[in-house]
């Protein structure tokens, strides 16, 4: 994992002291809320429905045991004993006191963490594949790139006041586990003629105007990625719609001027950038890459797993993925227990996962955009021991990518912008489909819920998506079908008129019934939907 050098640490420490002073001035009245708000937001501190909320950055979703333990300690000491993992691989605390915020940031700084780039119109925390470095099919480990982008983008003076927020994802496999094409810029590392570089996608996003990012460059060599991105951002920074907040994301610019024109402008800017020689020295990438060297895997390990315990075997089949090193496995930890809150973890659970990472996974863990956790390098021989500890902590649900593995934003239970509650709906759906056999029968089905049009819960990208709307003061839910955030990215289509909370659960049941009746062998829900179209589903729901 990347470790701060003295510059990184000095910058983060200085930022904490600066914020301590700003907070003090706010509490004594020297700063008004209008003056303080942009300052607190630059440090991840929002004001939500019930309290201040602090969003902590988890760069590309990677954490050490020590960092995770600190997140758990903070949840216990300063919050109400839990934290919420988000679709941007970050963590949110929902019950923060203003006076405590500087102390929390100081505690985070002791483990090389902060809340910078979690708010505001800057380049936000970079996201990546939770299987980075361990999946067999990747071209290269995307994390060094994500780290390089983090260093490039942190406090980048030119890009601190962009027209709007800017989200970048980096992946390196054909399987897209990071919703790469739903980011403002998506990079996919590829190899061409022995040279590593990237495909560049720009102008994707969700929110009120969802778009799947088009490819804007087929290949950019690895030593020019930074200056190419610099060019992409420059064009956006100059021409993005600052006049209208709802049209200010890069997707609108790319859409309005057209992909070809945007590409042309970027290439023109890039030609200029090239002359300036702004790419980081290759030694810097090599330095960063060294931090992500593979851990010292043992050799000669067995690939056998004792499957005599049926509950364990079920969990292995669902939650464990193939690792590139023989004898090792990737463990997915579900944060979606049937009666739980998607993405929430208690201080104790966070602490336990920190322990497991240290004891069984070379001191490393990951956060996924689907609001789950991953232990990336577990010996197959240790799987049973890990499972037993997860069972004891209520973390052994076996539902990865099934209908109860629901992404849900905080919704009206916590969020000041919400129209409707997402979490109780997620709980009702999970309860309806709780039976393990039924979930397995339905198979892969990604269900995603947002409490408003901002789409923090990725509803456009759900095989089944749900959007909360306000119908004259009453919660109402629109249903969408056919979205995907994966390598086959697509946007869901609205079925028709909205539903009450119970009505939408019934509608989903009808939708899955149609799928089960119509599917051909090997088809996932999404495949059947794409083959037969919206009509049969619509008839079943509204018929």
């Amino acid at each position, binding site marked *: 994992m990347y470790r701060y050098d003295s510059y990184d640490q000095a910058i983060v420490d200085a930022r904490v002291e600066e914020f301590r002073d700003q907070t003090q001035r*706010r*509490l*004594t*009245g020297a700063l008004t*809320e209008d003056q303080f708000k942009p300052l607190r937001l630059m440090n991840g501190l929002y*004001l939500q*429905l*019930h*309290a*201040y909320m602090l969003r902590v950055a988890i760069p590309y979703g990677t954490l050490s045991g020590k960092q995770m333990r600190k997140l758990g300690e903070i949840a216990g000491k300063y919050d*109400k004993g839990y934290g919420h993992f988000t679709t941007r691989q970050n963590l949110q605390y*929902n*019950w*923060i*006191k*203003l*006076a405590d915020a500087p102390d929390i940031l100081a505690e985070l700084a002791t483990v090389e963490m902060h809340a910078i780039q979690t708010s505001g119109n800057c380049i936000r925390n970079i996201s990546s594949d939770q299987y980075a470095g361990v999946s067999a099919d990747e071209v290269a480990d995307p994390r060094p790139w994500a780290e390089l982008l983090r260093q490039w983008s942190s406090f980048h003076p030119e890009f601190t006041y962009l027209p709007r927020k800017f989200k970048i994802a980096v992946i390196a496999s054909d399987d897209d586990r990071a919703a790469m094409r739903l980011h403002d810029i998506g990079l996919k590392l590829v190899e061409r003629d022995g040279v590593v570089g990237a495909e560049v996608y720009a102008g994707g996003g969700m929110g009120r105007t969802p778009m799947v990012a088009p490819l804007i460059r087929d290949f950019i060599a690895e030593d020019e990625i930074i200056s190419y991105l610099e060019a992409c951002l420059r064009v956006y920074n100059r021409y993005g719609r600052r006049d209208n907040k709802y049209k200010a994301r890069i997707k609108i610019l790319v859409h309005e001027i057209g992909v070809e024109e945007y590409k042309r402008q970027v290439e023109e800017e890039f030609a200029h950038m090239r002359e300036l020689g702004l790419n980081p020295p290759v030694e810097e990438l090599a330095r960063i890459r060294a931090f992500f060297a593979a851990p010292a895997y043992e050799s000669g390990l067995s690939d056998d797993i004792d499957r005599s315990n049926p509950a364990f075997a079920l969990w292995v089949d669902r939650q464990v993925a193939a690792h590139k090193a023989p004898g090792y496995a990737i463990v997915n930890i579900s944060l979606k227990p049937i009666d739980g*809150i998607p993405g929430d973890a208690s201080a104790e659970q966070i602490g336990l996962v920190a322990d497991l990472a240290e004891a069984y996974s070379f001191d490393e863990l990951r956060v996924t955009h689907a609001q789950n956790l991953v232990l990336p390098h577990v010996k197959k021989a240790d799987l049973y021991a890990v499972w037993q500890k997860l069972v004891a902590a209520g973390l052994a649900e076996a539902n990865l990518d099934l209908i109860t593995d629901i992404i849900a934003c905080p919704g*009206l*239970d*916590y969020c*000041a912008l*919400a129209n409707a*509650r997402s*979490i*109780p709906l997620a*709980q009702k759906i999970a309860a309806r489909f709780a039976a393990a056999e039924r979930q397995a029968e339905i198979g892969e089905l990604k269900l995603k819920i947002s409490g408003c049009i901002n789409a923090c819960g990725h509803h456009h990208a759900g095989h089944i998506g749900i959007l909360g709307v306000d119908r004259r*003061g*009453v*919660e109402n839910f629109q249903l969408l079908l056919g979205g995907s955030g994966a390598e086959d990215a697509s946007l869901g289509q609205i079925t028709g008129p909205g539903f009450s909370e119970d009505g939408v659960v019934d509608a989903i049941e009808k939708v899955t019934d149609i799928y089960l009746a119509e599917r051909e062998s090997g088809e996932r829900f999404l495949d059947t939907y794409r083959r037969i179209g919206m009509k049969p589903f619509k008839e079943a729901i509204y018929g």
Partner: protein
Amino acid sequence: MKILTGNDLASGDVIWWAGDGWSRQVGDAADVGAHGDDLARAEEAALRVVGAYVIDATLGEDGVRPAHIKDRIRAFGPTVRPDLVEQPTEADIGKWVI
């Protein structure tokens, strides 16, 4: 009736104007009539509240009920974690939030 709500500046807790100060119980909320906005500015300047705003509410036999679901949830706490905040003292809480 019109009532005034916001968050406590230091703790962030949801608070309601009770006539002579702030309360954490919506049941204590007082009618601010046409004075809500002035009161909000004065209390913000006095560093007792942040983000104060006036809302519609009804006063029935059972107490004060904010008109909009968002403010009822603020009064109640997250509906999925009723264990986390001090609940309204009325007997039928939970029935009127949604």
